[in-house]
């Protein structure tokens, strides 16, 4: 649950979501990541640190510019958490549809009775 909390908090900010999006499929330096944003480098670094703490981003050790890369494991966990809710709503919508149909049939039945 703690991991999930951290993942959700990390994903709660649009800047951090955009950073993660731009890390899909490639590593990038902090400078590269900061480019699209109208904010200071330290501000972007703070967001990256939040993502690091949540385990969503890892920093390279070798290169001097310590490239950032994406670690998708926590987000896959989030997708697993969502699965029961998908089932809940799929089945609820099934039932909504069936209930609407039963109401229609009832109404049609009433109509037939009225015609008798």
């Amino acid at each position, binding site marked *: *649950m703690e991991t*999930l*909390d951290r993942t*959700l*908090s990390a*994903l*709660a*900010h*649009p800047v951090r*979501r955009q950073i*993660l*999006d731009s890390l*899909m*499929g490639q590593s990038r330096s902090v400078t590269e990541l900061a480019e699209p944003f109208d904010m200071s480098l330290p501000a972007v670094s703070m967001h990256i640190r939040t993502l690091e703490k949540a385990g969503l981003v890892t920093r390279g050790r070798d290169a001097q510019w310590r490239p950032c890369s994406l670690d*998708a494991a926590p*987000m*896959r966990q*989030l*997708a697993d*958490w*969502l699965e*029961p*809710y*998908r*089932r*809940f*709503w*799929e*089945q*609820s*919508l*099934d*039932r*909504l*549809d*069936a*209930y*609407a*149909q039963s*109401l*229609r049939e009832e109404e049609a039945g009433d109509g037939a009775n009225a015609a008798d």
Partner: protein
Amino acid sequence: MARTQPTDNGLPDDGVSALRELVLTRTVAMDRALVWRLWTEPQHLAQWWGPHGFTNPECSIEPRPGGRLRIRMRSLDGQEYLNAGIVQVAEPPERLVFTIALLNPDGSCRLENRITVDLIERGAATEVTVRVQVLQATTDAGENLAGMGGGWSESLARLAEMAASERTAR
């Protein structure tokens, strides 16, 4: 039903935002004004809310901003689950937005979600789109609810604020 397909790294191909939400769409052969009533009148809502086999012995909804939603679901084997939330938007017959926490029998809660329901006219039928967004995982919200109402409404007020600020940030 639209569902995001995962790419080979296990992530949706339309970005990380998609991981926090699910979107389901269903077309119901019924007039939109009536579908709205199925969502917002307790005697109707109780007939279909929840997974297959569940009944809803207690169901109430106040379809206005700040109104409460409270549904006690019962599974086939008699387990009861409380669903509680707050209505944020009610624009008949088009849009209903509410927060909802699905609580386990022991009062614990996994995630709180915001549900956005959009009803679109498709001739004589209605397209129902349900968007499920994860607001926050809360370990203590369930305990609050099991114990006393106060903590729970505080938690929901916090959630509503969070949701509002998130919308502004976008």
